[in-house]
């Protein structure tokens, strides 16, 4: 046993000596470094990857169990296309609509990026709802997964918040009036309704302050918040495994 280990050690020493400095550097800073090279010997990336990719799925799992994953996939698309749109979008009432038209008509593949963001938003809301329905009808919200349901409801609210705040950003007729209607709704709350509406709008009517607020919520506040809840949601799934069979 000890002899064998000694032999392996010698072999490893030899391979280390054969490496040139340049190759070592390349491997350290490249993907091969992460998965096969010197970084892996320190971080065990390969082992972790294999453990995650080869994690067995219980046999009762079917397509209905994929809605959460599809929601995450769509969220990633929203994050990437959203960051790309930020490169051209200008959040002022004079420039917002113009910049959106510019993205759609003039920027190469701008129509594609904007279309992906638009369709991704709608599909994500659909998928989050389907995911929630599946969890509800299978009773997968019951303990010990009850806190997963709680974070899931938070994620649903945040997703709808993304949709509501993103809708105003193109600053066209439909978004302006939809936001007018949407911000009238909290006005019905007794006693504090008018204050709530004024808080959301940043004034009496929809204007530059509203656009600035919605932009800030859409690109900074909501992404940070949803990231926090997503991490919690996924950590609990990983810890508790897939629910069922039922």
């Amino acid at each position, binding site marked *: 046993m000890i002899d064998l280990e000694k032999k392996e050690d010698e072999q490893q020493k030899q391979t280390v000596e054969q490496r040139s400095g340049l190759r070592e550097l390349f491997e350290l800073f490249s993907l091969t470094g992460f998965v096969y090279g010197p970084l892996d010997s320190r971080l065990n990336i390969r082992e972790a990857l294999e453990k995650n990719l080869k994690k067995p799925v219980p046999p009762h799992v079917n397509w209905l169990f994929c809605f959460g994953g599809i929601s995450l996939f769509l969220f990633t698309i929203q994050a990437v296309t959203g960051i*790309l749109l930020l*490169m*051209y979008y200008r959040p002022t009432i004079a420039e917002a609509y113009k910049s959106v038209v510019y993205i759609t008509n*003039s*920027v*190469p*593949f*701008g129509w*594609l*990026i904007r279309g992906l963001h638009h369709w991704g938003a709608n599909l994500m809301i659909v998928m989050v709802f389907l995911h929630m329905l599946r969890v509800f009808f299978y009773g997968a919200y019951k303990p010990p997964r009850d806190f997963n349901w709680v974070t899931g409801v938070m994620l649903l609210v945040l997703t709808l918040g993304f949709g509501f705040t993103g809708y105003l950003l193109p600053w066209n007729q439909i978004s302006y009036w939809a936001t007018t209607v949407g911000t009238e709704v909290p006005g019905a709350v007794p006693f504090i309704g008018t204050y709530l509406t004024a808080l959301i709008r940043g004034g009496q009517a929809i204007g530059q302050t509203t656009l600035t607020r919605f932009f800030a919520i859409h690109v900074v506040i909501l992404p940070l918040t949803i990231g926090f809840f997503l991490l919690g949601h996924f950590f609990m799934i990983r810890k508790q495994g897939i629910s069922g069979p039922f």
Partner: protein
Amino acid sequence: MSKVTETVCEHQVEMEKAPKMRRRSFLNYCVGATSLLFGGMSLYSVAKFLFPPGAFSAEAAGEAVTIPLVELPVGSAKNVRYKGIASIVIRTSEKNVHALSAVCTHLGCIVKWDSSKQVLVCPCHAAIFDINGNVVSGPAPRPLESFPVQFARDEIVIGEA
């Protein structure tokens, strides 16, 4: 009978000699090629998206810039874009106009016209150029590029009109 077995044997030998591609590795290649194609197309469109239209065409266009004389009184300077380069046009007297690149040859700041000292001063590291673009002092290694200027009735034309 013996002939048939012989041919079968030969065939088997050939099969063992020939490099085998297993079904799984073939499928793996197909998946790899598809994802490479898809990833490449996605990356291509994203890369194109990040370069706005006209990002490079401004440099290529060598169109002449015209400035009405009323906009440039004697002793004043005006910043224009010529061939996509930030440039400065200075009118020192009634019939004397200079057009220079305003990009300092040191580290690329935009120089300003100091009318009292009749020099161009770079705000970043205090390089000084004279009216013809020659270096008077400072860290600038080369003179400023100057552009041809012509008078046409009531306007100034920069470039070969």
